[in-house]
């Protein structure tokens, strides 16, 4: 088993890329859970819808970029519709009720994509300029598309930070996380705020799906394994903390990647859960508190 520094560097990049992908999923999930106290399992379905919509749009328009530009607001809209129709009845309910309803959504969406697009997996092409690879250092070959994913994820992290910390909307989000009733009684339209927030979270998940489309199989149920990883990430990072989600995603991505290459398969699949247990043992509420 060779473990020279070049190999470690590439695997490290792989870990970061996986982490960034997870961050896109986890950031939306942690916002929704942290601010609205809603355990949303249908988040994985938004990931899937983003991928399916982008793939179809790419087939119709022939352009990857155009597909992204159109599919993103579409996922945002779908998120807002689901919120208005079903999710807003769940804020005052027990987490178990929320799990039941959102799990039902998973089943519905999994069947819906089969009905709309058939049971076969869809094809999504890599954008032309990014289908090759870059030689970062001698011996370090890395696919350009994956570098783009790392870049996009970090850009989203920065944008989210600016949104939450520097805008009025962000201020309302943080205030709503601390004390919902107070914000409502101050005349803020808390209902609209929540709908927007759910839309943003869904769009983030959809974006993760769209970016993953060209490298992964676009099929019914594709969101479920990613959802599980995202849940582990937000628990480690601290519910409601975007900073926590970023740090935890990178940790989980790197841990999972190195676990898979260093350990036998049975142990490798346990690594992230062991990591979660260890972090929770040290810090029961996760790495950061909400609004961090």
């Amino acid at each position, binding site marked *: 088993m060779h473990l020279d520094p070049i190999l470690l560097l590439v695997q490290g990049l792989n870990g970061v890329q996986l982490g960034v992908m997870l961050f896109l999923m986890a950031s939306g999930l942690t916002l929704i859970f942290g601010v609205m106290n809603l355990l949303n399992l249908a988040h994985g379905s938004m990931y899937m819808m983003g991928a399916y919509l982008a793939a179809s749009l790419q087939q119709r328009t022939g352009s990857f970029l155009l597909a992204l530009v159109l599919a993103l607001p579409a996922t945002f809209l779908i998120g807002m519709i689901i919120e208005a129709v079903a999710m807003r009845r769940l804020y005052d309910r027990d987490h178990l009720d929320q799990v039941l309803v959102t799990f039902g959504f998973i089943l519905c969406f999994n069947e819906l994509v089969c009905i709309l697009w058939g049971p076969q997996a869809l094809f999504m092409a890599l954008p032309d300029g990014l289908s090759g690879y870059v030689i970062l250092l001698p011996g370090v070959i890395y696919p350009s598309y994956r570098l783009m994913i790392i870049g996009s994820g970090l850009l989203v992290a920065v944008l989210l930070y600016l949104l939450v910390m520097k805008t009025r909307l962000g201020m309302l989000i943080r205030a709503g996380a601390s004390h919902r009733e107070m914000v409502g009684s101050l005349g803020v339209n808390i209902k609209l705020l929540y709908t927007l927030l759910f839309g943003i979270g869904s769009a983030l998940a959809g974006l993760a799906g769209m970016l993953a489309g060209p490298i992964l199989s676009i099929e*019914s149920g594709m969101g479920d394994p990613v959802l599980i990883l995202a849940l582990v990430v937000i628990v480690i990072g601290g519910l409601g903390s975007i900073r926590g989600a970023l740090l935890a995603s990178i940790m989980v991505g790197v841990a999972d990647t190195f676990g898979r290459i260093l350990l036998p398969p049975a142990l490798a699949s346990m690594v992230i859960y062991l990591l979660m247990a260890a972090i929770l043992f040290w810090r029961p509420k996760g790495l950061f508190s909400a609004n961090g």
Partner: protein
Amino acid sequence: MNRLIGLIVTGVMLISSSVFAADKVKVGYLSTLSGPGASLGMDILDGFKLGIKHCGDKLGGLPVELVIGDDQMKPEVGVQVSTRMMEKDKVDFVTGIVFSNVMMAVAKPITDAGIFLISANAGPSPLAGAGCMPNLFTVSWQNDQTHEAMGKYLQDKGVKRLYLMAPNYQAGKDGLEGVKRYFKGEIVAEVYTEVNQPDYAAELTQLRAANPDAVFVFYPGGMGVNFIKQYAQAGLKEKYPLYTTAFTTNQAVLPAMGDAALGIINASFWSPDLDNAVNKKFVADFQATYNHLPSLFAAQGYDTALLIDSAIRQVNGDLNAKDGLRAAFRKADFKSVRGAFRFNHNHFPIQDFYIRQVVKDPNGVLTNKITGVAFKDHADAYHGQCTMQW
């Protein structure tokens, strides 16, 4: 006297009712029709229905009532649905069964109830060996066979250092065992990844560092789409030739892989371009009916329908003649899309295996083309442990 006549008439009726042909045949189709495995179950069903159509919309001259059930790839659901099919719907045959885990659960309950189970896909090794059953017939293959064909091809080709990858479940392990049964060179690494793992970046980086002569993988369904796409995108295809089986590069998933799949060499018992009259008709009609080329799964479903048709014909529609049906199944007197077809004594096929390559047909559609033969009249490795003789 009247009493005697009455008794004789009743007796004659009782005897003759058992040789009356049934008025229809009820077939239970139990398969995976939802979730990631759904496309296989649907494909087999499409092939099966086309087979019934080609037999005159009947099986063995009897109108068909198809009872369709979804096992959701879960053994316990498979048992529930098959029980319902046998007790409530009173089916005469059960067929389908995509996944080996479901097959292992339903094989005994169905066959013990005296119902024939005709597997159109799953062929786990225990049921080919010591666990072979008189009422179970597997039309497709035994799970290891296709992988053995590729192992033999690689051995004959003179590959020295082979890298193996598969998902970490029974079928993955069986697949790599099959390859190792015939490939005797150096196995650089045997890597098992998590089932339904989406991203292989880490494993592919390790592969590049290991620098093998060739790579063999078994990744069915969506896992295959992920792997092949990522393999090509990492620039590995040119340097490390990839070899696999039809389970990874079949017609059902090729469209989702795109050009990433071009040129990949794979093994199969069947190919759309197999040159015999039955296959040509099957492929042409399938394309016309469903607007895409059939996969090997559809071909298996088609052959299953033809087999059942031939068996019912042999007993003149008398579905209660179980021994007669069994003998008819064993005879397998039908023209298969594979050409000749025969069963081994363990009720698994003895058949040829081909080497194919993924190419683009004149219409630009990705498909497979036969480039050679790996095995002629290949029996599975487990039949010696089966004690059935006939």
